[in-house]
């Protein structure tokens, strides 16, 4: 292939129809309270991990809703599990089980995830 000195970048666009959303569906089964998340960001503001890194449960829930799991898989283990987010969440989301379930699902789907990794 020829290199003309510039590259073709892939669309940043979230293509809803092409991305797999079965992980979010499985997450809803494991922890239905995740459906109540309204992306307010309280969790991220109190997060122990977010002091040092850009860990954001709000964002990861959204990414899974859109089917973009790559960033989530890379980061979800950064959670310290301290539980502050759960106490802070105004919508009663069981945030720790959300994270625990994401970790479980992602571990069990690791091979499939690598195959269609990211957008």
């Amino acid at each position, binding site marked *: 292939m020829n290199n*003309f000195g510039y590259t*073709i*970048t892939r669309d940043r666009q979230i293509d809803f129809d092409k991305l797999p959303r079965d992980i979010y569906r499985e997450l809803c089964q494991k922890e239905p309270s995740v459906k109540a998340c309204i992306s307010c960001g309280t969790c991220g503001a109190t997060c122990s991990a977010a002091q040092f890194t850009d860990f954001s449960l709000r964002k990861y829930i959204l990414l899974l809703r859109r089917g973009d799991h790559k960033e989530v898989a890379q980061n979800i283990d950064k959670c310290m599990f301290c539980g502050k987010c759960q106490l802070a969440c105004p919508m009663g989301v069981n945030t720790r089980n959300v994270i625990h379930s994401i970790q479980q699902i992602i571990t069990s789907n690791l091979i499939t995830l690598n195959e269609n990794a990211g957008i």
Partner: protein
Amino acid sequence: MKIEGKKRLWQDYQKEIATDNYFYARSCIRQNFFPASEKTFLRVMREELNKDVYEDPRHTTCSGIVYHSDLVTMDTTMTVIARQFSLMTESGRKNYVPSCITSFGLYTEVLEMWEHFPELETKAREMLWKATGREFEKPENVAHASDIIYKFRNEIASRGKFRLVNHRTGQPLRGVEHIGCHYSKMFPHKGVGGAEYPYVLVGMIEAFGGEVVDYPERRHCCGFGFRQYVVKANRGFSISSSRKKFESMAPYKPDFILTNCPGCPYFLDRWQYAISEMEGVTYGENGYGIPVLTYEELAGLVLGYDPWDLGLQTHQVSVEPLLEKMGIPYNPATKYLGAQGQDLGRPEKPSVLKVY
């Protein structure tokens, strides 16, 4: 699709297009990209439609290309445009017809500004006077050259020798249209059919017997974007935009792409080659590209002009598949001969994209 809905909308976006006595302003880059297109416009207007089209050899760039590359100020642009108008005034014409979409957009923009801020017009007149001692009148009508072809599309069709119809099956050929962003996206009421569902090219394709297909990224920019192409480091943005359009239109299997802008046909044509070299992907049938035409080239084909006189050999994507569908005869032997019959040489064969 409710076609009556579109028709209703098109009625809201009808513009006045002068019918004769035009002052024609050429495009800077088309003369390099598709040199025969402007010649074809003049030929159609003068020979087929017997119109008066005046060209002044002293006219210059409208400065749009540098304006959009952020290299000149608005004052410079207004003065340059004022000078163009003064040449038109001097010729006694009142109908200004630019060949370039960006020029058309810029003239429209400047005229709108003068409308809303008369002091700017006064300032432009002063600056022109100080610089050149010239005066000008504003044009009564500004129409893009594609508006003119659109206006006379039915006349052209009735004089035409060929139609946008597959001559073997009798099925209309499928075209996708792409208007230049500066045609109506800034001032929807200045474009035929508006910005969302522009009609100018659709009208031509319909009049010439073809069928227009919509595709999701129809509204998306071709990717030229001035700075995006001119600065090499940004060139990836340009080709990525074009690729987005190709990916979106390819499933609809268009027979051709019709454009009305200097940059669009160029980039939609050349990037098909570049993408094929970079990624090994082609978008037309059987490894060829999707032929890209300017509206003048299309009108010329319909009127039976020799494809090589229309400059179609300068396209990167071979137009022969389209010619064959339309039943237009062409001589491969003369494809790369100059006006005096001299051999111009042959372009190198691309490694992936198939060409004739």
